[in-house]
């Protein structure tokens, strides 16, 4: 049996949409400060798995343990756990009717009951750190895609999460904007954030991931350190997938 006291442990997680089994007995444990990359073809279930971890999608069987606590018990209120797990999606993240500052401050003031002054200070600090200090009063549609994604990351960080789930946060971006967002992710990792990242950016996964998981048809076929999986994959399917990308 697994050591369930790790930061995040998935045990036989299965998620179905009607007939379709999208996550099929997923087992994965993530250490504090570790960065795990999910790779796999489109439709292999990466997004769904991340949504399950954030309890946005109810799982059909299995368990999700956060710091040794089962957070996947049916009927459990997901909100206290969601605020400990930040998630950033591929697109449509920001609230278009709010400024950057309002986007960031909404959840801390409503969920953590932080005062406005406190939240503003935290937000200012984070924006500064990610080079967005002069965008605080802009509306999202006045920002580039890369800036929007960085704001989305900052917004998740303002909740002081213990884990960040990042779902293909660069795949809706123009190639020249990808770098600035990945820099932010790298900085997060250097600050010892626990990160689970679904990505098509193999070079990035190879450079910064501690472990890479290859998903295929809702199953984790192979988990290995990036050097291993990219140079000498064990499974034929992994080899095939990586081969098609190169």
């Amino acid at each position: 049996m697994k050591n369930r006291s790790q930061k995040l442990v998935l045990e036989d997680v299965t998620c179905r949409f009607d007939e379709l089994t999208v996550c099929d007995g997923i087992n994965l444990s993530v250490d504090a400060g570790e960065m795990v990359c999910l790779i796999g073809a489109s439709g292999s279930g990466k997004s769904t798995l991340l949504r399950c971890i954030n309890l946005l999608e109810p799982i059909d069987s299995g368990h999700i343990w956060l710091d040794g606590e089962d957070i996947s018990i049916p009927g459990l209120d997901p909100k206290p756990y969601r605020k400990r797990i930040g998630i950033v999606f591929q697109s449509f993240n920001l609230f278009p009717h709010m400024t950057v500052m309002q986007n960031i401050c909404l959840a801390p003031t409503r969920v953590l009951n932080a005062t406005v002054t406190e939240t503003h200070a935290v937000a200012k600090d984070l924006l500064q750190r990610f080079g967005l200090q002069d965008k605080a009063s802009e509306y999202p549609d006045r920002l580039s895609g890369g800036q929007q994604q960085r704001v989305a990351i900052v917004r998740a960080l303002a909740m002081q999460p213990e884990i960040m789930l990042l779902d293909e946060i660069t795949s809706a971006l123009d190639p020249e904007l990808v770098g600035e967002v990945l820099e932010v992710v790298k900085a997060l990792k250097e600050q010892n954030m626990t990160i689970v990242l679904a990505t098509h950016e193999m070079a990035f996964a190879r450079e910064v991931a501690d472990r890479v998981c290859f998903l295929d048809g809702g199953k984790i076929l192979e988990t290995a350190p990036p050097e291993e999986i990219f140079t000498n994959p064990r499974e034929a399917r992994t080899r095939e997938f990586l081969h098609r990308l190169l």
Partner: protein
Amino acid sequence: MSALSPRKRYEQKERRRSLLIATASLLAVCAALYTLVPKAPGWVAVKRSFFNWAVLEKTFPTLLKAFLWDIAIFAWSLPLIMVLALAIALCRNVKTPALFPLRVFGAFYTDIFRGVPTILLVYLIGFGIPGLGLPRPWNSPYLWGTVALVLTYSAYVAEVLRSGIESVHKSQRAASESLGLTEADTMRFVVLPQAIRRQVPAMMNFIIALQKDVALLSFIGPVELLRQANVYKSLMANFTPYVGAAVIFLCVTIPATRYADYLLAKQHSVRT
């Protein structure tokens, strides 16, 4: 101005040209009407009973005063309509199984009050409820007329709001809930503001329609503009007060309609 680019200068020239053409053709149509209409055989009679300046002069101030009632009824109906419409729209949006009856109630409400002609509802409520013989302030036609308007219009506005709520992309809810916000907070801070903003032009159309439909209350008693015009018509055996009433309504509804169009155009330009 020397700062104009060639393109701007060209556009300005084009604008002036089309304005000139439009003015000329409008004047031509007016001149034709002015000379042709009086040649019609019944014109003298029509002019006497519909466009009688002496009658208009005598009745117009009172008509204007009666219009204040329209404005007042409109002004107190509108916030009630908005609040009730919001409540109904939220009812129809309820997802929790335990609150399913609310959903059914919301659906029934909108079906019934959109399905009955406004004038019928005004009659039923305006005559029916005071007919119960309620004591003094509770038998006022102003009160029950307003209730009829509020019931009808809140059904329409609720539907507009509901479609606005449904038009907000579901990933916006996901983004909000992933931050740990409650469903109520998600609705209040994320979904509703976007839904309302999106539906302002559509709601403006109902607001304009409401302004006109206040006149329906004339059938059950309040001496507002239409009823006042009706009184004068009978008194003077002349239809000019109706024309005066129409002009007063137009003075309000035309700018409001233009404003709604402007809002809609602005919204389209933002979205593209």
